[in-house]
């Protein structure tokens, strides 16, 4: 199987993660061909999940289709990269009915467009107007600071490291002052 995939899709990126889990990374235009080939020839009949991971430094999303054989003993992760700007990849709804809800989920969380999916309406976020929340540039802390407030009365929090430093400096100063006072006192007594 691996040799066929390597030859046909010009990829060397096949990994055996576990006994029951393989992973392959292919070019974006070849991914559906590969999925259909796995489905027709190697019995990978079930689409278990479509996952997405945001690699913001490398400017792409890694979309992974997880396929499982009909006896459920082998899984195959088929991964491809799509650009972050105007992200889009064709829908799989015509082959796998369950892809509809998975794509709907990713559409909402990452703003990826799936041409061919008729039902990309909002799922769990109601009237969301900000950046799609699972993109890395969406900063939850900033969102919280802008929209929500902390409980009142939580003042009095000390920065412990600074406080330790201050106390140490204070102690040192006190020690030095005591030493100085002692020296002065002895000088005075010497003078007498």
């Amino acid at each position: 199987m691996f040799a066929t995939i390597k030859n046909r899709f010009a990829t060397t990126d096949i990994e055996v993660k576990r006994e029951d889990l393989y992973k392959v990374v292919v070019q974006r235009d070849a991914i559906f061909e590969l999925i259909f080939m796995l489905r027709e020839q190697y019995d990978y009949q079930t689409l278990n999940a479509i996952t997405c991971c945001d690699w913001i430094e490398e400017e792409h999303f890694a979309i992974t289709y997880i396929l499982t054989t009909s006896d459920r003993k082998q899984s195959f992760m088929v991964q491809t990269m799509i650009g972050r700007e105007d992200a889009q990849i064709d829908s799989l709804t015509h082959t796998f009915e369950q892809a509809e809800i998975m794509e709907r989920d990713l559409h909402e969380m990452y703003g990826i467009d799936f041409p061919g999916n008729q039902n990309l309406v909002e799922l769990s976020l109601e009237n969301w107007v900000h950046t799609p929340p699972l993109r890395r540039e969406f900063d939850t802390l900033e969102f919280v600071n802008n929209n929500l407030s902390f409980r009142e009365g939580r003042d009095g929090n000390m920065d412990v490291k600074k406080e330790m430093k201050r106390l140490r400096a204070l102690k040192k100063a006190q020690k030095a002052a005591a030493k100085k006072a002692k020296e002065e006192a002895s000088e005075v007594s010497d003078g007498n």
Partner: protein
Amino acid sequence: METNKHITIFHGPQHPGITGNMSVELDLIGETIQKATTHVGYLHRGFEKLVERRTVIQAFTIVCRICVPEPDPNEANFAMAVEELAGIEVSERVKYIRVMVLELSRLASQCMWLAGQSGSIGLYAVGQWAIADRDLILDLFEELTGGRVYHMYIYPGGVRRDLPDGFLRRLEKVLNHFKKRLKEYDNIFINNASFKSRAIGVGIVSPEECIKNGYVGQVLRGCGIEADVRKDAPYLVYDQLDFEVPTAQGGDVYARALVRRAEMDQSIHILEQVIDKMPEGEIMVKMPTHRKFKLPKNDTWVKVESSRGEFAYYMAGDGSEKIRRMQVRGPSLVHAFTLLEDLLVGAELSDVALIMNSLGICPPEIER
């Protein structure tokens, strides 16, 4: 649409027969459903995003909240994914303890299902009994983990506490109680004529559809397909334990009920073996502090069998102390949309809660 003929109603989110905070919009003619649309969004807490902001160790405490009635498969999945990415090997004792916790939580979750399923057709006494029995398991959890519902016990690299003195004996006592009790449940619920007449022939799923659409758990097993992650891709020590995968024919609500009932027997059987075989050993490998524990740049897909079917996690690390991506694929995501919307068409209004409960839909894991 003709006027005065169609009615559109919302079933949920506050309907007592519903499985959690979700609603189904139903188009009715008379009592018959023409179209069903699932709506979620009452429970979105953004765990997948929150995990990205926390270190691995900090993130471990929120994954259990992804599914309320059965938190442990989440913890096990999270721990297994982190261990696989970081290359940690846990001891035999840890594996046995994890199996014990997972099976106990499966048993507790099936009790919860008994309560929901019987409540959905009005047999409330069964529900009260099942919840009372579930409490015995929660007492065990309280003793073992310090929490009744959210255990936060299966830690990446081990488990957080060792078994207390005499814990296995008390577990055995509870199991003996359950064995007696399950026969009574057979009499008053599974063999009950009113449950049979309501459940047989309702909500039928075909085996081909199951495989194609990725349905899992009791939906598959209720169609006569022997599918169980514990057998198909054994994790922890399930390959050393003796158990069967119960199946039933028919693919309807009653078949799924029979499967669940038989699974309770199997869980008890597994737990008895765990009591006999529990090895000695370390309960935790030495872990670095939470700011120093780093995951390499890699990704993986792990799955366990929860009480409602395959529960899987996709996890990607990026070389830092934070998790780059954790995606949850619970059994409910496909069941609540692709399957439920199909099954409800043509069903009666009074069967909605029955069908939803038999699919084991859990809204918290749809929305994460």
